C-alpha cells in the first residue's frame, strides 16, 4: 500500500475529495517529521510513539576493507507501536 492507495481507501469515509485527502495525509506526515526532527516525541494513542534517540559515537569497521573507522554520534527515529496496535495485527484481518 502506498500513500495513493491509502488515500483511495479513506477519502470516501471522511467525505473529502481525493485531492483534499491527499493534502491532509501529506500535511500529517510532514508535521510529524518536523516535530520529531526538533527532538520531540509524538504519542498517538491507539497507534504508537515516535521518538528520537541519540546514538553515541562508536568504533566501526568497513566490512569490505576491514579498516576501522569512527562512527559519528547521530540521532535516529524509533517507533514503538501501542499495545492496541500490536494486539490488532496479532488478531489479523479475520477479526
Amino acid at each position, binding site marked *: *500500500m*502506498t*500513500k495513493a492507495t*491509502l488515500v483511495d*481507501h*479513506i477519502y470516501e*469515509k*471522511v467525505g*473529502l475529495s481525493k485531492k*483534499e*485527502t491527499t*493534502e*491532509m*495525509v501529506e*500535511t*500529517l*506526515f*510532514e*508535521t*510529524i*517529521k518536523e*516535530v*520529531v*526532527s*526538533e*527532538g*520531540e*516525541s*509524538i*504519542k*498517538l*494513542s*491507539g*497507534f*504508537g510513539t*515516535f521518538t*528520537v534517540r*541519540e546514538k553515541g559515537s562508536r568504533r566501526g569497521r568497513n566490512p569490505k576493507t576491514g579498516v576501522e573507522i569512527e562512527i559519528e*554520534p*547521530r*540521532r*535516529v*527515529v*524509533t*517507533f514503538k*507501536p501501542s499495545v492496541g*496496535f*500490536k494486539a*490488532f*495485527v*496479532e*488478531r*489479523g*484481518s479475520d*477479526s
Partner: protein
Amino acid sequence: MTRSELMRLVSEKVPGFTKREIENIVKEILEGIKEALAMGEKVEIRGFGNFKLRHRRERRGRNPKTGDTVNVPVKKVPFFKVGKEFREMVNRKSSAGD
C-alpha cells in the same frame, strides 16, 4: 507531544478544514495503516517511512516470577522503518545544534 497538540499544528497548515474534519481524517489514516498491516500488507509513505510486520519466531521464555519455562508463540509485530528523507532531517538537526 500528544495527538491534540499535533492536530493543532496540522490545522494551522490546512486552514480550510475544521478541527473535527482533521481529527476524523487523522483517525482514518492511522486506522488505514493498522488495517493494512493486519492483512499482512506493507504501507509505504515516500519520504516518511514504511510500516510492515516483523515476524518473531516461537521461543522458550521464562516466567520471571516462578522461573518456569514457557513457550512464547510466534508473534507478528508492527515495525516502522524510517525513510531516507526523514532520517536525514532528524540527523541534520542534531549536527546543526552542536
